[in-house]
């Protein structure tokens, strides 16, 4: 021991001094000074120093939740749910809150651009030139050479293009979104059609149920209408009129929905159909009466062996389901995204029929149809997208217009969308952000951000009322962007002839009014007005229009129990030894990666931020000699990718899972070159409803010897501070 004051001690002391200084200065008001720009000319309806609130609609997913946006001196500063809107009743999810990060995103496309495909930059063009380009594209090509690929939001734009299509003979617009692929929407609606003879999305009344069995439906994350279903879940758990409800989730990895469940059943992938039928049989036996034909051929003991669920557990689950006064089974997500997905969906709906919950509180209904809703507006299944991409590649289309969707990122890479673009002479994108598809386009004519836009969105499910949510600009557009509807109206006028007569509108607002005007005659609307201007004012003020009556309808269930159902295991593509489950990252989903608030929000189950990971059970990882943060190579029969490992105890040892949402090669500074896209692994196997069998693959794992630390909220030592040495 030295008798001198060591260098180290001195440094410590100096450090304390420096820290004190830093803290003292940091506490002063100077650290909080910000610049404020007052109005140049304040609108009459504003008060200096007071916030102004506008009702509009969230465009982060297709659910159509109402928003109320607080603005201050002309700037949007906070979004909250619209308490009037019957779908979300004043609530939003994290993505709705983060919509401001889209509005103020520094990487937005700020001007109309002409570029060589694949180049990040391009030359700026005027809007007049842009409209001329669109007009030429419409006029100088045969109608069947013109195609529109639209997203699942902005229903008013879809309606405008649909009108254009029916009156001029151009191809019917096709719409797609990765969320509808991962929630297996087409499968659900096809199953309902097969069983009840009517097309439509079932409505699951979670809030009034007593026992809920969910087969893969991640309804607290992104499935169909997450805010509405989350509210329903709150009703299931806590209500003044009934006991706390029970919730059981069946899926091979514990999603954050499963984390909220009383019981998580880690079912062997592919055995969902037979497990449902076995529970149906056991429950029917407990309830007495004749055994429905649907369940007659199933052998619960055999199912128990195949599905890795003990027979006692099956019996206990059947008892739970049969004896509860309000049982509900929900199909969705990965359970339907398999080769036998349609059979799974049919089996779940049949299970509901076995306990007779159709049309009862806490049961299954048909969702009410939104105003002007038809089957024509549904989003395409991946099989339909495959056809579309093939047509593109074969040179069927001379012009492709893209709006509100990023197929170069969202579609499975094996479909070859990027290559197929080469078969299209002219690609015109209306993207707000410089995404992968926009950078492969010849022109980008940027649309406004959702908070700067007019429009409406039909609520297809989640509300008991028939709802159309209205959008209006809450701020003046920040950049030199223009509403795509306005661009198309102006271009149609310029193109003349049948195009001009198809869209005889002055501007977007006149078009909107023409679409909502018929609602004035409805008898059960929650507001009424004698003329369109008053009606429109109310529509803007309340953030939409909805009926006051319960519009849910009762399915025809006469023969449901007498059909025989398929109980076969699903087939898996690929040689590997691990089941592969891609799932939508609940915080980021398909288009949130460019919003830092969402990137910084830890994934609810793993707490990983800013990256992609692969979930591997620790037992499997130990067998393979894989530690946390080791980079592994995953190979499917459609592709391969390298991704760091998160050892996740809540996943089956024979299953691995990768979240979808990251892995952008464009899309702005916060999204680019971050993580990987599991769509690169997806093949082209479909279920009987045309939905992608995204969870029907087997993959291989190889070590690479590399390491890439994942940033995560929980400590590296794990929650309990121990780690296997």
């Amino acid at each position, binding site marked *: 021991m030295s008798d*001198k004051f060591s260098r180290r001690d001195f440094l410590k002391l100096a450090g304390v001094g420096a820290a004190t200084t*830093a803290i*003292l*200065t940091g506490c002063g*008001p100077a650290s909080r000074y910000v610049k404020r720009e007052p109005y140049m000319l304040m609108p009459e309806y504003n008060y*200096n*120093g007071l916030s102004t609130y506008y009702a509009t609609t969230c465009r982060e997913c297709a659910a159509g939740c109402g928003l109320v946006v607080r603005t201050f001196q002309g700037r949007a500063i906070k979004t909250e749910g619209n308490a009037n809107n019957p779908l979300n009743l004043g609530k939003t999810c994290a993505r709705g809150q983060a919509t401001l990060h889209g509005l103020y995103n520094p990487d937005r496309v700020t001007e109309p651009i002409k570029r060589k495909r694949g180049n990040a930059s391009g030359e700026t063009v005027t809007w007049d030139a842009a409209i001329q380009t669109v007009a030429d594209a419409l006029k100088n090509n045969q109608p069947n050479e013109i195609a529109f690929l639209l997203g699942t939001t902005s229903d008013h734009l879809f309606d405008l293009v649909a009108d254009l299509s029916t009156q001029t003979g151009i191809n019917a617009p096709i719409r797609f979104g990765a969320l509808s692929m991962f929630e297996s929407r087409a499968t659900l609606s096809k199953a309902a059609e097969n069983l009840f003879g009517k097309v439509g999305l079932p409505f699951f009344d979670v809030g009034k149920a007593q026992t809920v069995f969910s087969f893969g439906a991640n309804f607290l994350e992104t499935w169909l209408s997450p805010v509405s279903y989350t509210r329903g879940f709150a009703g299931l758990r806590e209500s003044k009129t009934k006991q706390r409800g029970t919730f059981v989730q069946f899926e091979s990895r514990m999603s954050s929905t499963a984390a909220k469940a009383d019981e998580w059943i880690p079912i062997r992938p592919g055995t969902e159909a037979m497990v449902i039928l076995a529970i149906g049989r056991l429950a029917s036996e407990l309830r007495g009466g004749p055994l429905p034909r649907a369940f007659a051929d199933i052998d619960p003991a055999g199912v128990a062996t195949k599905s890795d669920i003990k027979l006692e557990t099956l019996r206990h689950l059947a008892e739970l389901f049969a004896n509860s006064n309000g049982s509900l089974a929900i199909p969705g997500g990965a359970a339907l995204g398999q080769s036998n997905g349609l059979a799974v969906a049919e089996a779940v709906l049949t299970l509901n029929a076995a306990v007779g919950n159709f049309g009862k509180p806490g049961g299954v209904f048909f969702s009410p149809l939104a105003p002007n809703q038809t089957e024509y507006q549904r989003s395409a299944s991946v099989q339909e997208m495959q056809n579309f991409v093939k047509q593109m590649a074969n040179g069927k289309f001379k012009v492709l217009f893209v709006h509100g969707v990023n197929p170069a990122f969202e579609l499975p890479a094996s479909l070859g969308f990027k290559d197929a673009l080469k078969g299209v002479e002219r690609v015109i994108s209306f993207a707000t952000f410089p995404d992968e598809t926009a950078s492969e386009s010849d022109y980008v004519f940027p649309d406004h951000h959702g908070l700067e836009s007019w429009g409406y969105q039909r609520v297809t499910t989640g509300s008991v009322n028939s709802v159309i949510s209205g959008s209006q600009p809450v701020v003046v557009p920040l950049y030199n962007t223009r509403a795509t509807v306005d661009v198309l109206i102006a271009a149609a006028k310029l193109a003349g002839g049948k195009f001009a007569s198809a869209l005889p509108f002055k501007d977007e607002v006149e078009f909107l009014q023409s679409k909502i005007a018929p609602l004035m005659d409805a008898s059960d609307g929650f507001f009424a007005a004698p003329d369109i201007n008053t009606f429109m004012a109310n529509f803007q003020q309340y953030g939409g229009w909805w009926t006051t009556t319960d519009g849910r309808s009762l399915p025809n269930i006469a023969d449901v129990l007498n059909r025989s159902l398929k109980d076969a295991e699903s087939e898996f593509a690929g040689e590997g030894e691990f089941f592969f489950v891609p799932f939508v990252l609940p915080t980021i989903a398909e288009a949130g990666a460019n919003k830092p608030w969402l990137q910084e929000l830890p994934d609810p189950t793993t707490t990983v931020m800013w990256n992609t990971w692969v979930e591997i059970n620790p037992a499997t990882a130990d067998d393979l000699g894989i530690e946390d943060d080791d980079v592994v190579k995953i190979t499917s029969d459609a592709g391969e990718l390298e991704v760091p490992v998160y050892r996740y105890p809540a996943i089956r040892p024979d299953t691995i899972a990768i979240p979808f949402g990251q892995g952008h090669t464009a899309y702005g500074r916060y999204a680019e070159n971050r993580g990987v896209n599991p769509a690169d692994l997806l093949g082209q196997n479909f279920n009987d409803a045309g939905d992608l069998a995204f969870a029907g693959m087997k993959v291989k794992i190889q070590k690479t010897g590399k390491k890439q630390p994942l940033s995560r909220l929980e400590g590296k030592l794990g929650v309990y501070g121990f780690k296997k040495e």
Partner: protein
Amino acid sequence: MTKRLFDWLKQPLSLIAVGIVLLALFSFAAYGVSLTQKSPEQPIQFPHKTHVSLGIQCLYCHAGAARGPAAGIPSQARCWGCHNQIAKTQTSQLLAPLKQAVISGKPLEWVPVFIVPDFVHFNHRAHIAAGQNCENCHGDMSKVTVAESPQVFNMGFCLNCHKKVAAGNQALLVKLTDCGTCHY
């Protein structure tokens, strides 16, 4: 380490060294603190005293104070309403940024100095409604040019006044000193 430290400190040279270090740290900290107390730079050296001496009420420009949480910064249109009638506006060097802003349509960037941290919800309206005058907190504006905060807006400042106002009225005192009154 403590024993080593004391042994070392007993030497006179060490004492001097420690003294120098402490002095350096102290003066650095003092400089840092003084930096934070300086008013920020404004786009115009706005003479509040001139405007007040002309008899213009505070609420004429900061109208939000009587109606809501924020007093607000007036729009350029409000400035220009008077100033385009004043010949000096066209020539004054001091007013050039205002003229420029009106011509270019680009708003001036002011830096508010009367600010409280984000965890405090301050509402002007309640204070005006309770009969408080602006100068009780903001100081005598007839004497200053660019706005400067005459005191630190910390919790002690707020509570002192709240207690004084509620003197003798127990029910009011409870209301005015409740945490949730400002922190919610």
